[in-house]
């Protein structure tokens, strides 16, 4: 019983670890064609979403999204850091959303 338990645990945790490693080594956008290289290696070709759109998509996933007017800039900074960690958001998502919230309140 015990060995099977630990075995299962080891499998699941190693799958998790490998996904993490795979993702971290893969984070550079795939920019092989010349056009992208000219534009700079960090340029991503997907259509960039605006902070407003991300706010609509991301902030409704767990609770109803608050509107920009609900808090002042200082509070949005605190809330953004809190939500970045609690909701496990990407840095890009939260930076754009925070900028939008602070610009529209």
């Amino acid at each position, binding site marked *: 019983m015990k060995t099977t338990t630990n075995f299962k645990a080891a499998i699941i945790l190693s799958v998790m670890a490998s996904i993490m490693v795979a*993702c971290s080594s893969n984070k550079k956008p795939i920019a092989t064609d010349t056009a992208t290289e000219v534009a700079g290696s960090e340029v991503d070709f997907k259509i960039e979403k605006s902070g407003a759109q991300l706010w609509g998509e991301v902030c409704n996933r767990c609770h109803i999204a608050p509107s920009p007017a609900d808090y002042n*800039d200082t509070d949005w900074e605190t809330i953004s850091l809190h939500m970045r960690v609690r909701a496990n958001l990407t840095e890009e998502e939260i930076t754009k959303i925070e900028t939008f919230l602070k610009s529209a309140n």
Partner: protein
Amino acid sequence: MTLIILGLGSSALAQTYNTFEPSKTQFMLRGYGHTGFEYLDTGGEQESTFLGATFAPIFLYKHSDKLMFEAELEFELEGNELKTGLEYADVMYVLNKHMTVRAGKFLLPFGTFMERLHPAWINRLPSRPLGFGHDGIAPASDIGVELRGAFDLGGPKMNYAVYVTNGPRIKDGSEEPEEAGMLDFGYYEDVNLAKALGGRIGLLPLSDSSMEWGISAYTTNSTGAEDSDYKDVGAFLWALDLSYVKSITPLQGVVDIKAQYNSSNVDTATYYEIEDGISEPYSFDNQSSSFYTQLSYRPIMSGSDFIKQLEFVGRYSDFNAPEGAEWEEKSTQYAFGLNYWLSWRSVVKLSYQTTKMEGGHDSDGTTRTNGLFVHWAIGF
């Protein structure tokens, strides 16, 4: 003289102005509370009560753009007693783009219900699904260290969390014989040298972030005290979760689906039952599971201001505790609700819930409990 006055005036002005500059150190006091009325019919026995208000203040202290502390206290009237609790108290630091470290007492990312959905102003129903909360099988919080972060996969997104904590204690039956073999996740003191290790991976396959799948695991080699017979009783738990939230134009509103499956496997051990003064050993296959799925709908595109604020909710949940245990149980529950949203964080919930329980540690046979709830929750 004029110069001095001018000088003083401008420095006073500068000072006043300065108070409006954002401070690097930021403090927020927030939290939530709820109150309500409940009517319960348990196998023909009725009771009704107004609920004492629950008040949960949350302290957020932002030290810099990377460093933050969060803590939540909980005050609740239980009968005539004021119960207090420290729901969480942890410090977090953003190490880099993809990694944040947290330490202290934190809500565990075992599935999503406890970490993300349980606060009264977020939970769409007044009750928790079966398997969560008191005597539940899913760990809710613990003391330890955690690493978490997220990656953009060029549309889809992935997030992870891995943690090491003190881990649970097994109830050996010496205090509550009818609960022998249950894991006690609310026992925060470490009873042994072994730690619990756990984690969750979340994947958001769609570029609009509407869907998230999560898989969680949690394991420990020992749940008993270092010098006890239960030292080598290990446990392995896993969970699957799903969230789908999308605004659908033909349906004129937002559809929200949540689900979580929890499975708990505790190593087999021998417990003792006292019958007629004689201590009888017994043992059972210590496996439990629980599941819930919830569907809610908010007609936010309706032309009527009243209908826009409404929400319809349905939830199914079940719970299976091991056969042969004193707490053997098979329960299923259906809950239906109608909510009225006063704002994004204040809601009045009306719900009906029916639970069928076979076994359970208070009774044998089948018990049916029907309940009617009106709750008012507010986050602030």
